[in-house]
């Protein structure tokens, strides 16, 4: 509600002045005060009509955007639960499928060992039972594919040297920043105990954060990458940039799926929400500190070992 009030004020204020001029002019005109009030009336009415028009347009546009965002949010929630749903269904179907397959085999065996009898179309029965087996196998392939799709999203925990993994990703991004006025500063804690985490998942998170940092900097700037081990074994990785920063009102939505402030076609608005999802699955946290105009710092915190058994 507060937000729409602010919005109303933002779009309302520019035409409040002309509207006052219009009303004031009208009042003076009624008293018969000559040509200046008349000019004020004309001038004010034109400006305020324009203001009202732009207010209506922006309100409609805002509504449309909100509706779009709702749909997209729903979509991404759907995607996230799709994996679980798929795995569940595939599991449930696999058991009866196995029984059907076994029974069909048994029927086939019975039929083929049965002595031929008058009036029993044995050949057709056999063919029919075999077809059941073939189709059961087809279903089994489908459920296996579904299961592997769901499993693809599950993290696999391996021993990881965080500094090395981070440095690998930094090097990749550095090939793009070289000679473009962006300095990369490494501040890795050495030595650091390896942690148990999902290496490709963490790589994806790092690449996304580094790439965002690079894109946040216009012209010259600096990206600092820090790694720290906390006393309890947790590890923090921070990516700090001296870029444009994130406006305060965007901060609560920065990890939402499809939220983007990048130019059209430059970002899908999925990067940070994917990072959030991955870090979540790794049992960690991700957060951001940002000062508009000064830069942003994204921090990823990971446990030394995942809490739940993998």
């Amino acid at each position, binding site marked *: 509600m507060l937000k729409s009030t602010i919005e109303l004020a933002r779009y309302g204020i520019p035409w409040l002045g002309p509207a006052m001029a219009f009303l004031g002019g009208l009042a003076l005109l009624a008293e018969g005060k000559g040509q200046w009030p008349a000019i004020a009336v004309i001038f004010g009415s034109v400006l305020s009509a324009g203001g009202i028009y732009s207010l209506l347009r922006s309100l409609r546009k805002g509504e449309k955007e909100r509706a779009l965002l709702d749909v997209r949010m729903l979509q991404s929630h759907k995607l996230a639960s799709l994996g679980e749903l798929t795995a569940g269904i595939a599991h449930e179907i696999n058991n009866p499928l196995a029984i059907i397959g076994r029974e069909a085999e048994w029927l086939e065996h019975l039929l083929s060992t049965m002595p031929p009898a008058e009036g029993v179309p044995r050949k057709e029965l056999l063919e029919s039972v075999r077809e059941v087996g073939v189709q059961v196998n087809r279903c089994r392939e489908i459920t296996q594919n579904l299961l*592997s*799709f769901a*499993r*693809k999203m599950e993290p*696999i*925990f*391996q021993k990881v040297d965080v500094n090395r993994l981070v440095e*690998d990703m930094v*090097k*990749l*991004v550095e*090939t*793009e920043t070289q000679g473009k006025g962006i300095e990369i500063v490494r501040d890795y804690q050495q030595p650091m105990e390896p942690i148990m985490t999902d*290496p*490709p998942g963490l*790589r*994806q998170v790092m*690449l*996304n954060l*580094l*790439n965002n940092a*690079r894109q946040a900097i216009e012209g010259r700037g600096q990206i600092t990458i820090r790694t720290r081990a906390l006393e309890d074994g947790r590890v923090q990785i921070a990516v700090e940039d001296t870029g444009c920063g994130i406006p305060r009102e965007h901060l609560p939505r920065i990890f939402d799926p499809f939220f983007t402030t990048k130019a059209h076609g430059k970002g899908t608005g999925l990067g940070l929400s*994917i990072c959030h999802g991955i870090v979540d699955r790794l049992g960690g946290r991700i957060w951001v500190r940002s000062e508009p105009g000064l830069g942003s710092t994204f921090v990823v915190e990971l446990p030394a070992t995942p809490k739940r058994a993998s």
Partner: protein
Amino acid sequence: MDLVRILVVDDEEDFLETLVNRLNRRGMSAQGALSGREALKMMEEKEFDVVVLDVRMPGMDGLEVLREVKNRWPFVEVILLTGHGSVESGIEGMRLGAFDYVMKPADLEVLIEKIQQARERKILRES
């Protein structure tokens, strides 16, 4: 433990041959393919653990091959070879499920270590 079965995919014949030979000499079972299509055909006939894949290839490029591999053999791990690193294709590759990337010219020790981690991941996932 069985030998790691590796498929190296690169359109540069000399590079491919050298790398396959060196991996085989290091006690791995490596084979080479000169194109994405050849690689996919080989994978239909034989099981591999790890695919080492050049990103820039004429015809079917590395990311396309990666997509196809991950679709059809989700447990096979893929390590990308990037000519001169490109962030966009790196991110895209990771998003499509690549295990890691190695910048060319690939350091053999680094590559072997990554191959072993990728193999370990495949075993962990299948168990």
